């Protein structure tokens, strides 16, 4: 009887763990699939995004905008590719922004699901862990990672559909310095991972380009909650500008709050914009005044913004400004396949690799370029808006067209050539 009791007792935790895993899968991968598509031609697309963990605020809007876009095409009968129409079916994998999870996700998508197009990853660690799988399996990755080495001649099956710090950095620094000519000393702070190292490398080069002194270059572990020692260390060097570089929104907000509490009165900027909701809730309106980044904001909002906001809010119940920026990424994948006129990944890759391919996204033209400094024109460029926060809102201050941005990045890279960081 005791033996029986024990076996029953141990079966409960096993059942419990099974239930946990099942529920987690349901929670994370609850994206709708098109059941009516069984009879039609199917275009199977894989995706590797952080759908849980600290980077989920990035991954989830990307997933949602991709779902919205495919629902629109599927409702019209499918994505027109050549002579056929394809119902779009997504297979979602969650890499939790981690290398080993990204590798596992890619193996599942490539070997189990036979996917030839992968949307993501957005984590450099995740992408670095899986990229050697792409070429042998003729699989294209439409990545969104910030590490400079993500694209290049060694990785012909990778296209970066996101504009990174490398592209927006010169524009943001130029605008910040033109508006604040007294800035002479900069302190950069980054997460201690590939994305953060890339951000620090860029900040160091930008400081050199704009003749600033880098007085601090700090790195923090991914799980850090209390930044007070690092901010103390940074402020002891008396910077005029805090460059939050590639830090995530939550980390940015926490650092801003502490720096202002500790008396910092200089300028604060970052490469990726942080959602205004997060900055307001965590740091408060008073402390985020003057924060500079790139963000689509009034009065320079593209015409489709409000309509998209309404659709997104109706579909998902909550609006995050970041979703507007995320929207063109999935569109890149679908437009690329549509424009190549084939679902053959080799044909799509060759079509895009010619360079100069472009399409019209919700925020204007998006064009592949960057051959002069990446060695391949696999980097997307788009219209950028330099914005600052004033009175608790992003305010668009200057618009940069694709050609202006390409020219600026080219000049910067010629003046300060990229040298890989030692980290």
């Amino acid at each position, binding site marked *: 009887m005791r033996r029986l009791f024990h076996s029953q007792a141990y079966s409960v935790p096993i059942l419990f*763990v099974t239930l946990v895993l099942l529920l987690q899968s349901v929670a994370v991968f609850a994206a709708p699939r098109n059941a009516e598509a069984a009879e039609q031609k199917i275009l199977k697309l894989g995706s590797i995004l952080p759908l849980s963990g600290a980077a*989920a605020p990035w991954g989830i809007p990307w997933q949602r905008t991709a779902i919205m876009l495919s629902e629109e095409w599927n409702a019209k009968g499918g994505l027109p590719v050549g002579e056929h129409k394809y119902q779009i079916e997504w297979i979602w994998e969650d890499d939790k922004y981690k290398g080993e999870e990204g590798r596992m996700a890619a193996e599942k998508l490539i070997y189990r699901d036979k996917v030839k197009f992968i949307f993501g990853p957005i984590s450099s660690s995740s992408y670095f862990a899986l990229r050697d799988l792409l070429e042998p399996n003729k699989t294209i990755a439409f990545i969104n990672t910030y590490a400079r080495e993500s694209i290049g001649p060694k990785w012909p099956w990778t296209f970066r559909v996101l504009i990174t710090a490398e592209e927006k950095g010169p524009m943001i620094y130029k605008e910040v310095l033109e508006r604040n000519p007294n800035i002479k000393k900069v302190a950069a702070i980054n997460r201690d991972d590939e994305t953060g190292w890339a951000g620090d490398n860029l900040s160091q080069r930008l400081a050199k380009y704009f003749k600033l002194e880098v007085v601090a270059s700090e790195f923090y572990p991914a799980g850090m909650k209390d930044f*007070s020692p*690092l901010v103390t260390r940074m402020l002891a060097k008396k910077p005029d500008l805090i460059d939050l570089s590639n830090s995530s*929104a939550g980390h940015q907000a926490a650092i801003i709050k502490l720096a202002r509490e*500790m008396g910092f009165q200089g300028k604060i900027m970052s490469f990726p914009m942080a959602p205004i909701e997060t900055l307001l809730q965590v740091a408060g309106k008073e402390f985020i005044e003057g924060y500079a980044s790139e963000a689509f904001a009034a009065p320079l909002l593209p015409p489709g913004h409000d309509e998209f906001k309404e659709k997104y809010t109706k579909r998902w119940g909550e609006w995050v400004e970041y979703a507007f920026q995320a929207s063109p990424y999935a569109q890149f994948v679908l437009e690329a396949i549509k424009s190549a006129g084939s679902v053959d990944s080799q044909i799509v890759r060759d079509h895009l690799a010619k360079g100069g391919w472009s399409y019209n996204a919700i925020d204007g033209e998006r064009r592949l370029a960057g051959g002069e400094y990446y060695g391949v024109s696999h980097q997307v460029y788009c219209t950028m808006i330099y914005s600052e926060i004033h009175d608790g809102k992003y305010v668009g201050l200057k618009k940069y067209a694709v050609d202006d941005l390409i020219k600026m990045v080219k000049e910067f890279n010629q003046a300060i050539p990229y040298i890989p960081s030692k980290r």
Partner: protein
Amino acid sequence: MSGELLIQVLFNGLSMGMIYVLIASGFTLIYSIMRILNFAHGELYMIAGYITFYLFEQAGLNYFLNLILAMAIVGLLGALIERVFFHPFLGEHDPPLIIALGLMMLIPGLALVGFGELDRGVRKIFPGVLKIGGAYISMERIAVIIIGAIIMIGLNFFLKNFKIGRALQAISQDAEAAALQGVNVATMSTIGFALSTALAAAAGVLIAPLFVLNPFIGVEATFKALIVVVIGGLGSVQGALAGGLLLGFMESFGYTFIGGVSEVLIFCLVLFILLIRPKGLMGRY
């Protein structure tokens, strides 16, 4: 090193330490009563943070009323968790460990669905900054230190002077002997679990205005609590106090003067403490 920097570093260490003490005290209390390493402890801290976000930040409830409500709600949730998941395995080692790990995975997933993926924050309750000797001391952090100290003194008083508190202490020393003296070990375990999760809730409410809130902050909190109780000694509330403050000061001095590498040095120090005192500074087990 300038005087103002030293004051800043000492204050940072004290405020970080008190936060760790609050998180770790509940964690170690559960261990002392039930011998369970509750890896889901941080998840209850996270839930209390969200209660604060919804009741205080969104609904405008008084902060202190919110603190009491959050402790009561999370305490009840803790009692429910204990009854459903841990109670059937009272006195066993492996099943509760697996269950705690399962809850640590399950709760953030459910929180992501329920609370959303956005980083949240709670407005300042104690605005303002004091300038002492050139160092900037935020009123919020001073409040955390004071309220945290009051909670720890209250806990100590409760454990020593109340019948339930003494019963919990008796169980933590010898459960069988306590049972022979008429203590209902099963009921007291549930009460102890509820008390420790209420402590996690207090930490969550106090820390909500300081840090960013998202469904995944619990894992890191549990990890820190584990380090604290390893330093201070498993099952000892006084050990959690000593371990939490020591970790806070180590992190403050380490990150300020050495930078990111201090994380490695902290682990080296933990290893060193374990080598010379395997039970931790004040541990019994």
